[in-house]
């Protein structure tokens, strides 16, 4: 059962890093990809219809950790308290920038919101780099808090940026694609790198020590395994609906 729970957890985490990682990356590169207000709105339209569907993978990851591996929740979150506070604040600031940017029709308002998207995306990417680096170095001792990996992991943020550029090549249209091509990046390569780093970090964690009792673990594992095809189906409907390049500005 623990293997099933771990596989489900790996799928959810990989889903987050690959799908939402691209949104974070595009947010980081927003000033590079979009030079004026109209272009920035198009750049945001490349991932706007997907960002809600992308970040739910992390919420599901946190849910599975709480249900199946409750020991990891407090080891990781209290151990890396400041890093996760930064991660959450970055996430909130990024999301609010996205939600709010179209709500008031004024240049300064949009500039502040776009600033929030860029700053939030960078903080989010750096925080993920720090978390992954800490787990890679600390392994079973993550509850001891920050270690040398916390700092060494920070450059991983650049993988998110490159991943975002790879995504932008596939999603933007016209002259903006040319600009995205200036940043070296292939979507599938950076996706593989992100998943590989995640698997390597996950490999180092002491799962048996943090797992719930077999009954509770089994409940969460079975439920997730049953739900997973439905969740992927819902996501596929989103990908199908918003396939193709973003040629016109959207709701945000």
């Amino acid at each position, binding site marked *: 059962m623990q293997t099933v729970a771990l596989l489900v957890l790996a799928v959810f985490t990989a889903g987050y890093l690959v799908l939402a990682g691209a949104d974070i990356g595009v947010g980081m590169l927003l000033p590079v990809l979009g030079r004026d207000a109209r272009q920035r709105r198009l750049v945001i339209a490349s991932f706007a219809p997907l960002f809600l569907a992308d970040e739910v993978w992390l*919420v599901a990851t946190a*849910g599975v950790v709480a249900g199946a591996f409750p020991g990891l*929740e407090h080891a990781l979150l209290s151990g890396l*308290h400041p890093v996760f*506070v930064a991660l959450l604040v970055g996430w909130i600031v990024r999301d609010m920038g996205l939600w709010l940017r179209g709500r008031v029709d004024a240049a300064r308002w949009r500039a502040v919101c776009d600033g929030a998207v860029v700053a939030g995306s960078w903080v989010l990417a750096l925080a993920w780099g720090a978390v992954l680096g800490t787990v890679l170095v600390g392994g079973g001792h993550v509850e001891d808090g920050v270690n040398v990996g916390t700092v060494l992991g920070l450059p991983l943020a650049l993988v998110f940026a490159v991943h975002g550029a790879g995504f932008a090549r596939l999603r933007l249209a016209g002259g903006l694609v040319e600009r995205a091509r200036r940043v070296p990046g292939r979507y599938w390569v950076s996706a593989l790198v992100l998943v590989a780093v995640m698997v390597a970090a996950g490999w180092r964690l002491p799962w048996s020590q943090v797992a719930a009792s077999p009954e509770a673990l089994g409940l969460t594992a079975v439920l997730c395994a049953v739900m997973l095809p439905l969740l992927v189906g819902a996501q596929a409907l989103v990908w199908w*609906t918003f396939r193709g390049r973003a040629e*016109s500005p*959207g709701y945000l």
Partner: protein
Amino acid sequence: MDDPLLLARVQFALTAGSHFLFVALTLGLATLVALTQTIATLSGSAVAERMTRFWGQLYVINYAVGIVTGLVMEFQFGLNWSGMSRVVGEVFGAPLAMETVVAFFVESTFLGLWIFGWDRLNRWVHLALIWVVAATAYFSAYFILVANGFLQRPVGYRMQDGVARLTDVGALLTNPTALLAFGHVVFGGLLTAGFFMAAVSGYHLFRRTAEADLFRRSMRTGLVAVVLSVFPVAMFGGTQFRYVQPTKHPGTDEAAAQVAQFQARFGPGDYTPPGLASVGEIAMVSAWMLMSLVALVALVKLPFGRWLERGRVFHVLVMAALPLPYVAVISGWVFREVGRQPWMVYGVLTTEDALSDVPAGAVTASFVVFTAVFAVLVAVNVWLLARYARRGPEAVRLGALEAPEPERPVLTPSL
């Protein structure tokens, strides 16, 4: 600012409180928007279509705050309350896992599809989406109240080496404090959305804006929601008193007996909740009484559409009544949660023991940062809700088609 326990508690209260204030409206408004869109889709009525977009826009603005505060809540358990995940983690975590996988994942995925897919999807598919969003929002509320019900009245577990093990998931999922609270919250959400719709409609009818027809219909929808939910909400609330902790009402014989039992089991200490809990109870019941009076007037006026459109005193009344459901929601939350103190899990784990052993400085820093961010967030969104409510259906961008702009050549920088 040097008491980490107090700071962590206030931080949780601010997060959960602001979350609940917005989520109450989300729950009820999703249902009313889904109903309006159903009418629009079935009848092809243009007014119903514009109503869907107007109230849908307000729903989306409101939803954004609920989602963001909800994310922080999910992580806050591990950040500040690691004692809880250490002792009751797997029992409390099970409904949280179910909430994310069965409810929230689908809710948020389909909401994105509903918002951005307005002009791309078949209208029946689009209608189905909002119903799935509304249904999964209720699933979400149910699972969260299962988790909260366990804190209020722990069931379905066995203590083993100081750790709670899940033994009976059926008991956990059918805990009366969860089921009755769910009914209470469902009708509380509808009541909030009903008052919200009536107040915004009242504003436009009072000001005699151009949208008399649309807002007369909206006023009726809101008032019907108010009339239908004002008594069930009290019924579900009242029935819960059978399962309420004895110490929630200090001074009674049951409370004294329970305190004596706690002192025998856990040693001397103060096992009565702060007085704020009773203030919450009184405020909630008072707000409900005022709301039931407004509902009574609404019941008399509902059959007369013209009167709804013209009666200006009534418009002022429903505008003035808008804070009432919010007062009831937040004070009901205070009654339930503060009334459980000093316990995190009643009779199992104290709030003090649930606190993480992170340095006081880190707790203080996260308190300051989150409080500042949430203050801005709530202020901006309340302002936006008011602004969009005031501007009326003409200003709605949700579902409005945007023509592709002609492409201008992208200037390549010469560095």
